[in-house]
């Protein structure tokens, strides 16, 4: 077990392993997206109140979940960077941030499109929407801080501290609809009592959730490989790789 982690932490091993995993993760993501969207848009019934408009949930809810999941990944990587100074954790945190920011933006934009016809407003300053907006700023702040400092390793440490500090926002986002009166509705899927969503609607939702997970896995590995090559361009293993590619 520990041996595997030590091997994983070595850049050339990670680079090769990620290269082998990317096509698999990418194809699984594509398959899940096609099946999930088909079931969600054409097979699942319309909602009893919202009609067809509820179908935005198949993009909105998975991207909102992913925006929080990726932040937690980034914060855990950040803690590893701060404590163990592990290079690969730096690379993973840096590679995750733009993807997480993208999902956060997608959740805000899709929610806004849905909010206008359903609530009657594009945007309201309730606790859920506001805390999600803060999450977007945390991602952007992480990226800005990282690129503001020239030395990559010092930059990663500074940005990691921001990631760890910002993780406090994640439980606030999650519980905002329970702690305060909000316009945003409460949780549907993670409720423990009676199911609040039809099974025929839930299955495509979960498929889309998995599809987004695999999209993240694919995208973060591609970005992490690029970041690794860039940082390690002076080392022997990258030179060997280049020679082999050139030959």
């Amino acid at each position, binding site marked *: 077990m520990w041996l595997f982690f030590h091997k994983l932490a070595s850049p050339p091993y990670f680079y090769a392993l990620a290269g082998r995993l990317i096509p698999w993760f990418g194809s699984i993501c594509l398959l899940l997206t096609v099946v999930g969207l088909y079931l969600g848009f054409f097979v699942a019934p319309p909602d009893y109140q919202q009609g067809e408009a509820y179908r935005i949930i198949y993009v909105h809810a998975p991207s909102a979940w992913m925006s929080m999941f990726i932040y937690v990944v980034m914060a855990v990587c950040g803690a590893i960077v701060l404590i163990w100074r592990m290079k690969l954790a730096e690379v993973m945190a840096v590679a995750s941030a733009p993807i997480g920011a993208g999902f956060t933006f997608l959740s805000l934009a899709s929610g806004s499109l849905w909010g206008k016809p*359903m609530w*009657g407003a594009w945007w309201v300053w309730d606790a859920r929407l506001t805390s999600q907006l803060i999450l977007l700023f945390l991602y952007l702040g992480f990226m800005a801080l990282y690129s503001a400092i020239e030395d990559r390793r010092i930059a990663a440490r500074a940005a990691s501290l921001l990631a*760890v500090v910002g993780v*406090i926002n994640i439980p*606030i986002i999650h519980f905002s609809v329970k702690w305060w*009166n909000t316009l945003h*509705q409460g949780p549907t899927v993670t409720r423990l009592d009676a199911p609040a*969503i*039809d099974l025929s609607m839930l299955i495509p939702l979960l498929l889309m959730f998995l599809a987004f997970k695999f999209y993240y896995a694919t995208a973060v590995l591609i970005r992490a490989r690029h970041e690794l090559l860039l940082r390690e361009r002076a080392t022997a293993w990258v030179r060997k790789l280049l020679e082999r590619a050139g030959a």
Partner: protein
Amino acid sequence: MSPRQKRRLAGVLVVLIGLSAASALALNAFRDNLMFFYSPTEVMEGKAPPDHLIRIGGLVADNSFREMGEDLTVRFVITDTAENVPVEYTGVLPDLFREGQGVVAHGRLGSDGLFRAERVLAKHDENYMAPEVAEALEAAGYTGHTGDGGDYDR
């Protein structure tokens, strides 16, 4: 772990615990300001400031919806099942607006007890089902699942 790493681990934990405590205290102190709306009970208890723009949230009471004339003016009652607030509004209502539905009205409470709304938002609930299922539930007399906009009893 080396002593340095242990020290850093302790540092990260202290930062996290301190931040959690600080934000818990801060959020608790601002609790009332973070509420998006008042319930009718809170309004009747005088918790909402009079003559200020406030939001009232609750369910649209059954059989309370009246159209007042040609100019899109409507009246209805917002209830949390304990207290009622009559509301007057002129304008276009959102798609989800109907009796039994959760709504949030933004406006001022007059001294005559009538709430004059400048804006009405519909609050969606967390239930998703097919129209046939909703009809079947209603036919069976099971209304606990429909039209419940969440916690208005607070």
